[in-house]
């Protein structure tokens, strides 16, 4: 979809002042205005415009549940938890930054030491009733693990609606098929990052 028409906020070249005549005060001028308005065929212009649109049949309705508008890749809807492309393991390292930065305190994370003495996420939940979808968690995540997805139909019959870790995690069959979609919004790697990255001087 082309967003250029929406993103161009510079309207200086298309702005103009509407030419409004002074209101007539003399009865004769008022009468002249009435005659002018009566016989200028403005009413029929209106009729022509709507009938033209009717026959053009250029319908802009999207019948919503069947059809949906494409949404931008940066759209911030229900969270997703991504996996590593190389090993299909979870990206999340349990650092807890998302819990720390969350301004509406909706993320709760708990970790433990697993059998390989590595830190592992044991509990992770997002309270969608509190979440304001600000995107800070996705921005702060050092591993690009927690991101936003495109699922926006989150009506619920209760105010608290918890999103658990397993539900957010990309399913393994999706990883095998190679269809995990990277988030392009806040906190994501910008394109061509590989060419721009430089070595730390101290490494020499």
């Amino acid at each position, binding site marked *: 979809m082309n967003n250029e028409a929406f993103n161009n906020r510079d309207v200086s070249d298309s702005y103009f002042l509407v030419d409004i005549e002074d209101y007539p005060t003399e009865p004769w001028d008022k009468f002249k205005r009435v005659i002018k308005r009566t016989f200028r065929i403005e009413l029929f212009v*209106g009729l022509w415009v*709507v*009938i033209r*649109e*009717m026959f053009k049949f250029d*319908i*802009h309705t999207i019948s919503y549940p069947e059809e949906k508008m494409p949404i931008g890749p940066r759209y911030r809807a229900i969270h997703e938890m991504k996996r590593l492309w190389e090993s299909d393991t979870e990206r999340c390292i349990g650092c807890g930054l998302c819990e720390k930065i969350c301004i509406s305190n909706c993320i709760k994370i708990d970790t433990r030491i697993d059998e390989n003495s590595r830190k592992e996420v044991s509990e992770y939940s997002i309270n969608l009733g509190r979440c304001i979808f600000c995107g800070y968690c996705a921005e702060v995540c050092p591993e690009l693990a927690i991101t936003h997805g495109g699922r926006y139909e989150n009506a619920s019959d209760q105010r608290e609606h918890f999103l658990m870790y397993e539900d957010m995690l990309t399913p393994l069959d999706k990883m095998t098929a190679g269809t995990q979609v990277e988030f392009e919004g806040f906190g994501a790697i910008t394109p061509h990052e590989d060419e721009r990255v430089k070595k730390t001087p101290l490494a020499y």
Partner: protein
Amino acid sequence: MEVAYLIETVIKVVVVLLVFSALAGIGTYFERKVLAFMQRRLGPMNVGPYGMLQFGADAIKLFTKEDIIPSNVVAPIFKIAPVITAATAFIAAAAIPFLPEFTIFGYTVHPIVSDINIGILYILGVMGVGLYGPLLGGMASANKFSLLSAARGAAVFISYEVVTGLSILAPIMMVGSLSLIDFNDYQLENGWMIFNMYGVGFVAFILFWIAGFAETGRTPFHLIANDHEIIDGFGTEYSGMRWGLFFIGEYANMFFISFVIPLLFLGGYGDGSFLGAMALLGKMSFFFFFFLWTRAAWPDVRPDQLMWLCWKVLMPIAVLNILIAAIVMI
């Protein structure tokens, strides 16, 4: 009175009642579709193919909805008001010839309930009585928006009765009869009314058409039930089928006015052949469509502008028109 005549009349009354009640419903479907297409929308799409059963769904909703009588209203008047609107619309239809006469199984049918010799006067009079629906309903509702709408309704109806009456005086003078069938026969001999008498008929046609919009309360003159200023006007406190009766009355009135205009000015059903009957239905459809068309295209006028238009513009033109008609006829 012979039995055959009685049976025929009863059947005709029932047919008119059923056909136009159904048409009023189907008319809402067409209105929604036409408005939608003109505004680049789809309109009702989900109930039945292309939403064609939407009218049935609406009817079921209206019939089964709770009939609420609010606590402070004047209950008897509140209850009877919608009936007046719907009833007067259908009573007025008694003098309208919907089709030319035809023969079925050797029996000649006149598709007019009663060809009375004061037909057009009767139609306009009974349609004028329709004023009491919005007026009484609005005044009995104990709601200030309804009261405003009742006041506006009274002002609009009374003013535009004047224009309607005066505008058709010139055609009546030409025809010399008040029966719509005589109007039709006159136009069969002398050509359509709008082309008669050096434009007198045309001016009368335009005036009657404009007044028709006010009589039915359609868009340029929709201020009786103006949704964006006074909610639904006289209909604000109504629910269920009582509101539905107001609705049926409004749409039936639109259909009847759409029949009367071609009968008066555009040659009616002509020579009475099948083609003539189809032509009448075609003209009727155009005028009904025009009601919907203007609703999509035109803004509403203010009440004071409406009064200004009636008393300072249309009425003088109507009087002048009669004067010119009289001079030409002499």
